[in-house]
């Protein structure tokens, strides 16, 4: 009997703890239904719920009475951004990726947009554009740039399409192609590290149905490479052998 009472009290306490979130409308549907059922059968709990609703209303009133920040906050932020831009023009090297992400995000679900962004940025990073743009500025980002090399006196730093051609030339014996779907939570840094971990693997195409074609220079068979990729669960959502 005592055990039953204890359990019932525990259940009631659990429900009561959820009342603030129920009042704010932030409970899951299942929990909200549990709370509703309890409220319908327990007058004291319903009375306490009224207290919670009262607190909710006054907390909103209190916060709304706090007003808003002056324009100084925005001015300060914009000044900060200007200072950042002056100190670190590198940020502008991401323009190609952003453009690409913008196009994709209009066509695909949000998840895919994140993957697309990450992979697009990875392509940019791999292409060596970072180095070129760091020196030359963002305006040259979408053009083929010339960069002086100490030994040769000059070499091509490829734009993205040029890079893709170069990457495709890596195909054939000694390499495999894998279709990879990146996890929506994977960051650019994580994806870049992941690709580097596969002997500087290259994203050569995509996304197509959410998958990117990744070329890996390896002597392993494609099945092993796929399995190794799948082991990176935080970065890779799915990996399949490509027929290429």
């Amino acid at each position, binding site marked *: 009997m005592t055990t039953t009472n204890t359990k019932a009290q525990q259940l009631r306490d659990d429900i009561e703890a*959820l009342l603030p979130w129920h009042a704010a409308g932030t409970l899951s549907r299942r929990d909200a239904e549990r709370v509703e059922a309890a409220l319908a059968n327990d007058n004291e709990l319903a009375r306490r719920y009224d207290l919670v609703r009262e*607190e909710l209303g*006054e907390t909103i009133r209190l916060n709304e009475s706090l007003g808003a920040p002056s324009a100084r906050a925005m001015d300060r932020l914009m000044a900060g951004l200007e200072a950042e831009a002056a100190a670190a023009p590198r940020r502008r090297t991401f323009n190609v990726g952003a453009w690409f992400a913008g196009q994709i995000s209009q066509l695909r679900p949000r998840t895919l947009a994140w993957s697309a962004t990450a992979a697009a940025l990875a392509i940019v990073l791999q292409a060596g554009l970072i180095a070129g743009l760091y020196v030359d500025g963002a305006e040259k980002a979408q053009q083929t740039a010339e960069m002086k090399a100490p030994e040769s006196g000059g070499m091509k730093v490829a734009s993205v399409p040029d890079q893709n051609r170069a990457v495709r030339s890596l195909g054939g014996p000694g390499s495999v192609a894998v279709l990879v779907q990146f996890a929506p939570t994977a960051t650019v840094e994580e994806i870049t590290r992941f690709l580097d971990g596969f002997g500087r693997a290259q994203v050569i195409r995509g996304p197509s149905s959410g998958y990117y074609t990744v070329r890996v220079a390896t002597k392993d068979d494609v099945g092993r490479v796929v399995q190794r990729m799948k082991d990176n669960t935080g970065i890779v959502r799915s990996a399949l052998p490509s027929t290429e």
Partner: protein
Amino acid sequence: MQGTSDEALIVRIAAGEKLAMQVLFARHHVRVFRFVLRLVRNETLAEDLISEVFLDVWRQAGKFEARSAVSTWLLAIARFKALSALRKRGEAELDEEAAAAVEDTGDNPEVAMQKKDKGEILRKCLGELSPEHREVIDLVYYHEKGIEEVAEIVGIPENTVKTRMFYARKRLSELLKAAGVDRGWP
């Protein structure tokens, strides 16, 4: 761009697009300001801190993982900034400044009680809670954050969030009772 999701704005911000930053700022700065102001109780400092919050967003947008809502991320950064500022300047100093900086538009709880304005008494008592209790109550009631989100912002387990909320409400009832409003709970 006004209809763009917060997540898409973060992508654009990571690309260095200042306009996206302005849109995100316009969308969230008032709530972030109020959250910070309730913690630091100093309007000038709160304004400075929200600029820093969004500047951090500008710097870290490329690392945002979209595991949580952008608003949750903003509040987590804001909380960190506010607590750092409190540590740096010393809470006592800020509390003294608070009296002068935050306009006091109402009576104290006892006077309000005499005027029978229960709502005003409740708001006064909400203002008298500890920063820890104010924070959880604001996050749940005003910022509409779920248990998991509060846990992420504050950096505590979900069960602790529920316990903290319970004790914050209990303390609120005690303050109300002391001000003459007995709610019969707890």
